[in-house]
């Protein structure tokens, strides 16, 4: 087991009886790392966690990988700000992944929203307050989790308790744990779905995508 990588250390520590602070049983586990660990190592970690694990890397090479609770890798293509959308169905919800330069392209978040994505995970630190992921959340009304050294959970302003568009996170044993406020999101969508106000006719008249 390669101890020089963070996941290797976690897995070995757990195998040797260290107490592993595990998130709730229904949780997805998301990690942001500088580079992707070897897949066998990730598989062991995932099996140890017994939960689906999503790992994203930050720039310059943005990649992400999704493993189910048994450590099997779900196919996830590499993506810069290219033409691929990375969307998975996890825990009964559609989850979109944004990493690297994708995080600075609002088109990708919009396409995900129009596909019906419920949750977007953004890998890498965002400027605060009001970073890109926060802004995409406001104009698309999905939930978004910033997976970084300073994690944050975003939701539309109207749906957050203090109107800031940021949902509180709890930190336990090095894990930032969030219970995703699906009910609040559903109520907000019912009260005022912002995507209803889109003007697709106008967007299609002017070929702004070809410039």
């Amino acid at each position: 087991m390669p101890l020089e990588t963070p996941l290797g250390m976690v897995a070995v520590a757990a195998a040797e009886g260290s107490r592993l602070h595990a998130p709730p049983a229904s949780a997805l586990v998301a990690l942001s790392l500088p580079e992707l660990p070897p897949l066998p190592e990730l598989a062991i970690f995932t099996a140890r966690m017994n939960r689906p694990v999503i790992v994203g890397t930050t720039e310059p090479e943005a990649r992400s990988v999704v493993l189910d609770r048994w450590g099997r890798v779900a196919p996830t293509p590499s993506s810069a700000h290219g033409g691929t959308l990375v969307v998975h169905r996890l825990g009964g919800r559609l989850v979109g992944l944004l990493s690297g330069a994708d995080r600075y392209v609002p088109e990708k978040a919009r396409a995900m929203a129009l596909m019906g994505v419920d949750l977007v995970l953004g890998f890498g630190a965002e400027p605060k307050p009001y970073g890109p992921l926060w802004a995409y959340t406001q104009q698309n009304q999905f939930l978004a989790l910033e997976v970084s050294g300073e994690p944050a959970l975003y939701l539309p302003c109207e749906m957050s308790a203090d109107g800031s568009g940021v949902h509180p996170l709890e930190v336990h044993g090095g894990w930032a744990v969030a219970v995703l406020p699906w009910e609040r999101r559903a109520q907000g969508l019912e009260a005022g779905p912002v995507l209803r106000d889109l003007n697709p006719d106008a967007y299609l008249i002017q070929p702004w995508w070809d410039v």
Partner: protein
Amino acid sequence: MDRTTMEIAFGRLVLAGLVARGRRQVGIGSESGVAPMTWSRRQLVAAAVQWDMRPVTGVTDFTERITAVMDAAHHVGAALVVFPEDLGLCLLGLLTRYGGPRSAESLSPSQTSRYLAAWAPLVAPLYEECFRRAARNYGMVVVAGSTVYRRRTGVFNQAVVFGPDGRLTLRQPKLHPMPMERSWGVQAGSRLDRPGGLTLPLGVAVCHDASFFETYRMAEALGVEVMAVPSADPESDWSEAKARRGAWARTQETGMASVVAAGTGELYGVRFTGKAGIYIPRELTPDGSGVVAESREAHGEGVVAGTLDLDALARFRQEARPVPAPELLRSWLLPRYRALTRLT
């Protein structure tokens, strides 16, 4: 004939007379004319207006306030001044002494829609006359906020832009009416345009239009570098987070500057809050805020001004804002827009 129909007919008669007389009374700045205000790509001074949206008590009340704003903008060397959304509707206050208009709260949406469609277009010529003179007599590009117009295909909330010679250079309908506006019969515009004959790379996003990145992308494709955003946000309580999700956020996404004018106060039962502001990418401001200038309060009125460096903004867009891959748009986004058009 029901009461609403009678009120509308009476109001139309009165307004027609008041507007015709009012157009002859309009006096803003010096009629002797001035040279256009100068600007360069390295130094464009822009002014954003925060306006108390109370109904006017007379034409002079309106023109004196416009004059005060234009004087302030001229004093700081502004070549561009942006007024808030729905400004022309304040002119319906001319009818107050004749019994109208009433608070929208006391009317059903369909009644409001009837009053709006019948009365608001009548004050548009007076509204345009005021701003045509303001632009010409101060030599500035004036984004005159917006008012309600009737066109062949329906009623629109439309911004107008005047060049420094007083020529009307753009009518830009709002592309994304709010649900409240739609309930009043206001329809969505069908395209975004640039003012004709202006060298200033200007575009207009009317309030809620700035909630959608598509508006800024369409403008960018037209060569726009500065977005004027006349707004009047029907929120009783202002919050920074809600304010930051519109033009400020679009500026961060695209690297285009935004000059945001805000309506405040109360107009016919609708309460507004908002801050006038000028925004650029946060990376280009020393404190990382993305704010060049912004009103201190979300109530009351005033003018804020700031200097924009369009060359620096262009360099920033080139270096720091990725352009989405065309295949993403063609494969994923456009088909979904097409699907939405089939649904609506």
